[in-house]
């Protein structure tokens, strides 16, 4: 029996660009390791989605159960441990969504393997999975060899090339699950932020504000500007920590990783941790009073100016240009 590489996708998120990135990474890693590629779908998933995924893996395993209608970490972990113990994989890949990030170390521990997060590239050396990842807040990149199998990894999913269709569709199996509801941990309320912050990762244009704005009010001006250019709003950690905007707006190492065509940074200094979130932006532009602000090292174009002199007139000019 050949060993397997598992790419795991959660039904609560569905098949989006991130899922296709994870499946793509799994497909390539399986090929490199000479393994079978199994795509594991956990939670509710439409039949259309299941059959869609079946073009991209050698086998599909569907793990669903009424207790998986909503994500609950302890239950999902039980399911994954059961399934993985049977599949005995060499590697299990997840996306960078927050639910995956919390699963990875715990699953690695239960399977007595190794763990890594935020993997950019995956390769194989001496039969071990090797990942590269940003460390020190983006100031360096490390190569790490996961010598202990199975390697449980979450990847920066949207940075992975999507999966390629395979010649024959895969065999689909349902994993029967016996689950008990958790008595110790219960999700009692779920709140979705008004602005579809989940979509920040998919936004084509982003206007982002930092501590230099000095308060929450100027974000309304930035919003007006964003509306004119069809942009979404984001912010630096400093602005989120100050309570000016919701935490979900944060871009960076510990915020969203975005990849817009245009990222306009206003009154953001460009700390390496912030830059980590915009590494995949096509064009970065900045408005900052300080010509030495590090953000300008990452910009295609920039204006050294007080934002208060700029944002209003800029919106007016763009309104004219874009009619």
């Amino acid at each position, binding site marked *: 029996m050949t060993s397997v590489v598992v790419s795991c996708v959660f039904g609560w998120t569905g098949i989006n660009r991130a899922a296709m990135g994870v499946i793509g990474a799994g497909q390539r890693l399986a090929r490199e390791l000479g393994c079978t590629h199994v795509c594991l779908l956990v939670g509710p998933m439409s039949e259309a989605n299941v059959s869609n995924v079946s073009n991209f893996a050698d086998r599909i395993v569907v793990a669903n159960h009424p207790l998986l209608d909503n994500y609950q*970490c*302890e239950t999902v972990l039980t399911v994954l441990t059961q399934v993985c113990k049977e599949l005995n994989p060499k590697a299990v890949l997840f996306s960078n969504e*927050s639910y995956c990030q*919390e699963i*990875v*170390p*715990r699953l690695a*521990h239960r399977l007595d*393997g190794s*763990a890594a*997060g935020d993997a950019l590239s995956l390769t194989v050396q001496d039969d071990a999975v*090797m990942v590269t990842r940003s*460390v020190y*807040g983006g*100031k*360096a*990149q*490390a*190569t*790490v*060899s996961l010598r*202990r199998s199975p390697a449980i990894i979450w990847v920066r999913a949207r940075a992975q090339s999507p999966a390629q269709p395979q010649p024959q569709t895969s065999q689909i199996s349902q994993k029967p699950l016996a689950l008990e509801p958790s*008595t*110790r941990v*219960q999700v*009692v*309320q*779920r*709140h979705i*932020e008004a602005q579809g*912050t*989940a979509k920040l990762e998919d936004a084509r*244009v982003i206007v982002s504000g930092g501590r230099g704005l000095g308060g929450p009010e100027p974000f309304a001006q930035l919003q007006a500007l964003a509306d004119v250019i*069809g942009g979404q709003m984001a912010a630096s*950690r400093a602005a989120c*920590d*100050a309570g000016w905007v919701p*935490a979900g707006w944060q871009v960076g*190492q*510990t915020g969203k990783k975005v990849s817009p*065509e245009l990222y*306009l940074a206003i009154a953001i200094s460009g700390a*390496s941790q912030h830059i980590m979130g915009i590494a995949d932006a096509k*064009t*970065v*532009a900045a*408005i900052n009073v300080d010509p030495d602000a*590090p953000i*300008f*090292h990452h910009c*295609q*174009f920039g*204006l050294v*100016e007080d934002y208060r002199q*700029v944002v209003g*007139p800029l919106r007016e*000019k*763009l309104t004219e*240009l*874009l009619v």
Partner: protein
Amino acid sequence: MNILVCLKQILDPEMPSRDFHIDATGRDADRGSAGLVMNIFCANALETALQFREQHGGKITVITYGSASAEEILRKALALRVDNAVLVKNEIEQRLNPWSVARVIAAAIRKLGDFDLILTGRESGDWGDGQTGGFLAEELGRPCISLADDLKSDGSNPALVRIRRQNDQGWEVIEALTPLVITVTNHEHNVPRIAKTRDVMQAFRQPLTTWSHSDIGVNPQSITEDLARSEVLGLVIPSKQTQCEWIKGDTLDERISLLARRIANVVQSV
């Protein structure tokens, strides 16, 4: 409640990129002249614990596993009036990984007695692993709630806590029975407080518990084994820098017009 907060000392993550260098082994950062600080998410976790104690009472112990220099962050915590501080000395000359850290802290917890809540940061600002909390939960056989930004006790049941945790869409509220491991993320409500000068002075005179591996029954061999699970092969400094085109013009109005045109060009091609 009895609360343990795990603290890690790291190279100051706010140091400018130009001061960052790789050490002679090629596998870690060179300390250079950079300062050492308490990891910010540990400070957020500590703040969360302090607020919880103010509202509901209880005791806070802080623990760190590291070199002698890590005493400094324990003193910082003592200056914020935590009840106990423990330093477990890392006696092997190697960088630790989260797996070994979790094993050692779990051993220390067995010696310290039981905690209702164990708080860690969501991740370290140096290696950014974000694994220690999860590993620790598994070592201790407890549930783990991650990315928490608020923690309250439920008035009616002393063993029940309400935790607000962030997710990709917003947040959710979780009710959970202790004992628990919780990893804490930043939020406007857990921005670390600043110690009073008098408490800082006091903190220097307070006793610390210092343990070696053998004090808590940790076999150094098992640490070496955990370190071998994942090996750092090397570090490189990414060279990517972009040439910024400065928007220039004689008047502000001209500069803004130019900027508007550049932005419009990008936006229209989307």
